[in-house]
């Protein structure tokens, strides 16, 4: 029972912290570009403002258009309950499967792409087509980097992978982890529409991917989608952080352990936020036809990670 409430609390924590992470990255980016930038919590005000606005829906939109934001947000929240963030659930961990987590996130992307097509606007269709192109290229990489982790840990269960790495610290130095991490990191950036693949801060019609898909949304629906994509980004980074570098995560429900787990999560996410902000300041968006090059590079990294598990055996 205590664990159930802990899982619920952990999920709520992820849902509440996720926009803050995106806001933090925006703030660090602004600072790096010598702008003052809005404070990291500005994004919460933006979400509140959007929730208070009215919804405008195109006459050609079907039920799919209304359902998609709820599905996207719902799947993200379900995944948040599966990922070990502050502590590793034991009894509730039967469902905490790496495949379940990744493909639930993909389900949200799928419905978002459908919603982009639904209203029949040219931008939505273009965004959906681009998003599907990128996702089709990232999917093999996600599956392979998962395989690499699962092969070293002997399980696809998220908690078990983290526990195994904790028990054998040398594993984190093994090639499966060292090669798998950049692969998953690149894919995380691609799937959440961050910079080298998609620019989250512009609405330039020639280049946008994610923004084009959600262009028709307004008010609370837009807020839900923005929140869900922030949550997705948070979860992908947390997944990368806690599976590849699990130290600090609580293995019991003792208050002190939980506090340490929370501190470790904060530190890890802050480091990743700085890394993403520095990366986004340094690199320009890739030309759309260059994206497959980057993604095939990450695919090869993941492939090598899988093969290295065979070498080391």
């Amino acid at each position, binding site marked *: 029972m205590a664990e159930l409430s802990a899982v619920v609390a952990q999920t709520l924590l992820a849902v509440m912290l996720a926009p803050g992470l995106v806001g933090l990255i925006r703030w660090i980016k602004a600072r790096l570009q010598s702008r003052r930038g809005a404070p990291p919590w500005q994004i919460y005000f933006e979400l509140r403002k959007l929730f208070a606005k009215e919804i405008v829906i195109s006459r050609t939109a079907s039920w799919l258009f209304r359902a998609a934001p709820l599905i996207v947000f719902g799947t993200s929240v379900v995944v948040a309950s599966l990922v070990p963030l502050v502590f590793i659930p034991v009894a509730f961990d039967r469902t905490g499967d790496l495949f379940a987590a990744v493909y639930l996130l993909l389900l949200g992307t799928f419905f978002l792409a459908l919603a982009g097509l639904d209203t029949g606007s040219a931008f939505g269709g273009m965004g959906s087509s681009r998003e599907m192109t990128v996702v089709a290229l990232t999917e093999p990489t996600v599956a392979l980097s998962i395989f690499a982790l699962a092969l070293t840990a002997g399980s696809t269960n998220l908690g078990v992978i983290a526990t195994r790495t904790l028990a054998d610290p*040398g594993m984190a*130095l*093994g*090639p499966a982890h*060292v*090669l798998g991490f950049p692969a998953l990191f690149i894919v995380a950036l691609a799937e959440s529409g961050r910079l080298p693949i998609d620019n989250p801060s512009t609405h330039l019609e020639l280049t946008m991917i994610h923004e084009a898909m959600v262009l028709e949304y307004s008010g609370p629906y837009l807020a839900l989608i923005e929140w869900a994509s922030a949550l997705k980004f948070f979860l992908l980074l947390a997944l990368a952080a806690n599976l590849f570098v699990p130290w600090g995560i609580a293995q019991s429900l003792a208050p002190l352990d939980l506090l340490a787990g929370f501190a470790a999560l904060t530190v890890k996410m802050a480091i990743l936020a700085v890394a993403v902000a520095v990366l986004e300041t340094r690199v320009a968006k890739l030309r759309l036809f260059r994206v*497959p*090059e980057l993604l*095939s*590079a990450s*695919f*090869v990294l993941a*492939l*090598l990670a899988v*093969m*290295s598990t*065979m*070498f*080391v055996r």
Partner: protein
Amino acid sequence: MEGIFARLVVLAASGMLLTGLIVLWRKGVPAYIAAFTWQSWLLSGMTAAVGYLGGEPQLYLVAVILLLLKGIALPALLRATDRRFSTRRELLAYVNTETSLIVGGMLVLFAYVLTEPWMAMTKLPTRAALPVAMALLFVSLFIIVSRKKAITQVIGFLMLENSIALLAVVGTYGVPLLVELGVFLDALMGFLVMQIFLYDIHETFETLEVDQLARLKH
């Protein structure tokens, strides 16, 4: 201790393989030279580590020579060559980047299959790095045959040389010092000869693209 040692060796070898794959991915000679420099530093560090943990003091000398020759001297020479002949950043290849990378991955798989019987025979703690070394060998050969610019092919040749040295270090803890020195000298001479060729090709055809060599002097 042996476990950590084996992991470090595999890690360094994987790093060297990655620098080989970077050449398949990036465009531009400076990036290639940087990749080669990293690869040589990794090889030198690993040679010293194998010398320490395998109890082969002569490997220290090999590591120092590696560092001086391939880690410092050859990259400097390459940079000088690149400065003299640099035309445009975008480099041409017979195979596009995506396909090259996938082929690179396939070559690694092939190397793994090829070295499997060898892995089963040997009991060395460094044996896990054998397929990686073999993979680097194939990847460098692929770099040589798939790139159009002579200077990239030279870098491919130097990486090939690195991979053979890696194979010698992880497979047999280094060949006798005399042989090693001979190889170094050969590599250096080969590089200098190629340097002269590069210069001549550039003089005659005003380009370093080997495609252009098919036609006669204008």
